[in-house]
């Protein structure tokens, strides 16, 4: 197989720098997608992607391009997500490519994921083609961008291509650069078939569909394939390419990107990062795989209507089929009933799964506060992991609690430095390094507890930098920390959904905030209701629910008794639907209101 006319590349960038829009132009120019059926951000095919205007999954597509040298090239493009939560998607795509088009928004310049993704590409020894995009913007600052390219990414400025995905500028330059600068597919001469699984999808009819990049050999229907990690064999049912729709073809050969449908039905049996080979003549060395992604953020998900429990369970199951990074197991809560403990890569991932459950599986859900995994060393040396504050052992039995940290790279304008350092400090972080990027910007390197960036860190970052700051992070070490479990009590009864693990110094502030919020949101009650935040029985903050002022019918004579009883009965029924915390009946959505913000 001649791979010299094949190029595999992905488009990488910071979020919103225009990857998917530029892909549109490439698809159009190469006639991959007919103008007639073309849509904006064509590769963002999931509803949620279209709605949010962001890419969540990497999308492969095969194009044919007649280059200036007169030859027809097969170009396999992968559009990748820019958001930090999905950086694992970028890593997987990079492993299936020889080159990467790195976009820089001419109006924004280099941002945190620009740096992070460029480094991922360098680490995989990919050829990086820098493209300064959105040059149509009035705010485009080409000089700044080229300088940043050199200073921050050490890429020679003359390599940069000027482009605009929106106006269609620089499209041919980019295609030519891919053909000329990106090397042809690697490892094509390896004697046996080696095929990298970079993603997989579950289809109700066809079972597991593996997204693959063939490095060497060929694969076609009726071949007996073998998964190298497990030795499991299966018959190939169908192979095909992405146009970007799945399109069946006769075979896939070295350098090709496409899909394989086999007799394997269960998606978990086809691990992303595994190598497929041909069972009759198996390869002996696997392709470099991926390190397994592990969920970092956990929360409870509960159906609003308890009748929806089974529906929620089925929905989570189906989502997990296509998303190995997402995990769940059942749990129950006094306040919220039966639900699931779920693990995610980050907050956006969490938000997206929740939205897909609501949307695609039509279940209304509520989530508890996100938590991280704590390592707890108990007296006697036993170490346990806790991702749900409710499972925190008795404080007396704990020797030490360790929490996960992240190493963050934060790029901000110079004049936000003071505010940013204050924010990092407030979030219990330590800034250990600053690099001047150019006259206007600095990059801070900081270590922060993961738990502190879960809730509002990104919003705060945007606000102190007036929208100009950006952050990338990777998981750091576990470090010992003075953490405590804080309970929220309603009239003395703990409400498990609000239990949280906080740093001792922050407990009081957070406790007060939660109490206030609950007091404000719980509707007025006929009995006095105290809300308290407590650590190990010691109350650190308190508030009272408003008292009901008036609930009385003016007229109640003989003829009204039956009617009145009915009305009271109805109220009573309503009360039964409420969550009973001790003597207090609280509408379930009161908890939800509090959990929402």
């Amino acid at each position: 197989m001649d791979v010299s006319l094949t190029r595999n590349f992905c488009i990488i960038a910071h979020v919103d720098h225009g990857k998917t829009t530029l892909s549109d132009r490439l698809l159009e120019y190469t006639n991959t997608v007919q103008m007639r059926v073309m849509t904006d951000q064509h590769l963002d095919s999931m509803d949620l992607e279209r709605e949010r205007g962001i890419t969540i999954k990497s999308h492969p597509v095969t194009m044919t391009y007649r280059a200036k040298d007169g030859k027809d090239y097969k170009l396999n493009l992968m559009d990748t997500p820019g958001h930090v939560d999905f950086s694992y998607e970028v890593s997987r795509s990079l492993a299936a490519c020889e080159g990467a088009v790195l976009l820089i928004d001419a109006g924004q310049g280099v941002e945190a994921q620009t740096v992070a993704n460029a480094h991922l590409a360098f680490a995989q020894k990919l050829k990086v083609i820098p493209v300064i995009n959105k040059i149509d913007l009035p705010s485009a600052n080409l000089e700044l961008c080229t300088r940043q390219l050199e200073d921050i990414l050490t890429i020679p400025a003359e390599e940069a291509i000027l482009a605009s995905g929106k106006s269609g500028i620089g499209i041919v330059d980019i295609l030519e650069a891919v053909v000329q600068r990106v090397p042809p597919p690697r490892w094509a001469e390896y004697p046996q078939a080696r095929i990298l699984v970079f993603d997989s999808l579950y289809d109700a009819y066809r079972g597991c569909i593996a997204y693959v990049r063939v490095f060497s050999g060929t694969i076609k229907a009726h071949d007996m394939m073998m998964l190298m990690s497990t030795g499991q064999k299966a018959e190939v049912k169908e192979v095909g390419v992405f146009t970007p729709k799945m399109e069946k073809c006769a075979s896939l050969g070295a350098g090709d990107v496409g899909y394989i449908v086999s007799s394997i039905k269960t998606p978990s049996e086809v691990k992303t990062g595994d190598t497929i080979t041909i069972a009759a003549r198996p390869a002996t060395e696997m392709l470099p795989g991926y390190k397994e992604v592990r969920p970092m953020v956990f929360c409870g998900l509960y159906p609003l209507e308890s009748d929806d429990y089974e529906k929620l369970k089925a929905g989570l199951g189906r989502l997990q089929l296509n998303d190995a990074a997402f995990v769940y197991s059942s749990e129950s809560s006094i306040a919220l009933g039966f639900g699931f403990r779920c693990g995610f890569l980050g907050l956006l991932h969490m938000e997206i799964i929740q939205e897909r459950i609501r949307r695609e599986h039509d279940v209304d859900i509520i989530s508890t506060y996100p938590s991280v995994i704590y390592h707890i060393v108990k007296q006697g040396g036993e170490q346990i992991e806790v991702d749900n504050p409710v499972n925190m052992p008795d404080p007396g039995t704990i020797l030490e609690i360790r929490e996960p940290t992240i190493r963050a790279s934060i790029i901000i304008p110079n004049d936000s430095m003071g505010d940013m350092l204050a924010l990092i400090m407030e979030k219990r972080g330590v800034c250990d390094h600053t690099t001047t990027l150019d006259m206007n910007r600095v990059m801070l390197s900081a270590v922060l507890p993961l738990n502190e960036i879960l809730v509002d860190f990104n919003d705060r970052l945007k606000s102190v930098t007036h929208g100009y700051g950006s952050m990338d992070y990777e998981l750091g070490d576990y470090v010992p920390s003075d953490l405590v479990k804080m309970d929220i009590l309603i009239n003395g009864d703990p409400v498990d959904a609000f239990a949280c693990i906080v740093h001792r110094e922050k407990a009081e502030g957070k406790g007060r905030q939660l109490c206030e919020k609950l007091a404000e949101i719980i509707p007025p009650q006929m009995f006095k209701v105290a809300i308290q935040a407590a650590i190990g029985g010691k109350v650190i903050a308190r508030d009272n629910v408003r008292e009901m002022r008036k609930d009385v019918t003016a007229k109640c004579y003989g003829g009204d008794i039956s009617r009145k009883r009915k009305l009271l009965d109805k109220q009573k029924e309503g009360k039964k639907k409420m969550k009973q915390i001790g003597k207090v009946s609280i509408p379930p959505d009161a908890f939800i209101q509090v959990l929402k913000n």
Partner: protein
Amino acid sequence: MSEIAPPPAEPPAPLGLYAHVPFCASTCDFCAFYQTEPTAEGIRRFLDGVAAEAGLVGWQSPVTTVFWGGGTPGLLPPPDLRRLGETVRARLGGRAVEWTVEITPASATEARLAVLREIGVTRISLGAQSFRPELLEALGRQHSREQIFRAYDRIRAAGFPSVNVDLMFALPGQDEAAWQADLGEALALAPDHLSTYCLTFEEDTKLWVKLSQGKVRLDPALEANLYEATWARLEAAGYAQYEISNFARPGHACRHNLDTWRMHEWIGLGPSAASQHAGWRGQNPSDLDRWLAGVAQGERMGEERVALTPALLVEDALVFGLRMNAGVDLPDVRRRFPGAPWPAVQAAVERLVDGELAEESGGILQLTPRGRLLADAVGVELLGVFTSPAAGRGSGEPG
């Protein structure tokens, strides 16, 4: 005429008689009572029906109190009032302890009042509602401020022993000052009794429609303030509150209603009238024709029919009895309904007392002022404590 005769020391169980006169000149915007247009034919059929229905009742003891409500009983022509009076009188063991008739200001003619006085009516309840023309207008009432004064004077002149004036508050557009002004005008009349009703939005009324269209708004905080202001003012003026909405000078509390709230028995005659009698609670059809058809077949109180169990009666004696300032005499209730699940009753009582919604002393359970403003919530708290399947087990058959 002197004061109403005090009840005998060890009275036989009281029995009330309620007659529902279903005719009104027009429909008030807030009203959900059953009423229809008064025609000579309709009135005749009604009176025949009441007489026939009275014939169906198994009267076991004489009636102690009578109440004619509506509708507008005062709308009946004098001869018809007399006829209805005859039907009632036949069931009295001599003289009624109390006999109330509701009258609207527009219908209080001297001729009608004279007949009422003659047949033995002791108490007139005058539906004034408000003295402000714009509020009367807003309620869709068919009378003027002047008619209230004239009617009141005529009632007094006719010499009824006890007179009540009905007022309403928390009306759309009525602030506290306007309500105080109405209260002041009512007090200036010096009635024996005052009923002050916080406006209730009943389903299927014009006001309800306005509420659901957002044209009027509920303001529970203002309502609570008006309640408290009313209680304070009337107390100071010598009217003791004896129920959420009722105030009386000494000796003028409405016996008929007190007996109802204590879950004694009463017999209701007329369309939509409810009865609690002979082991059953039930209601007549809210329609003149259907009621008449039922009576013709010997049927009455066939709707919303429930058997009176000790548990139900205890529950209602508490839920409705607590609306009275005198509260509920627990040992007395216990004596009357020994089959009720008393541990459950006691637990519910303790909850209310703990929550400072009620106080108990010497077996008398009374709501605190705050509890009174939350009487419905208290009711919900008590409801089902006795009548739920678990609580009611072994509480006995219909008594």
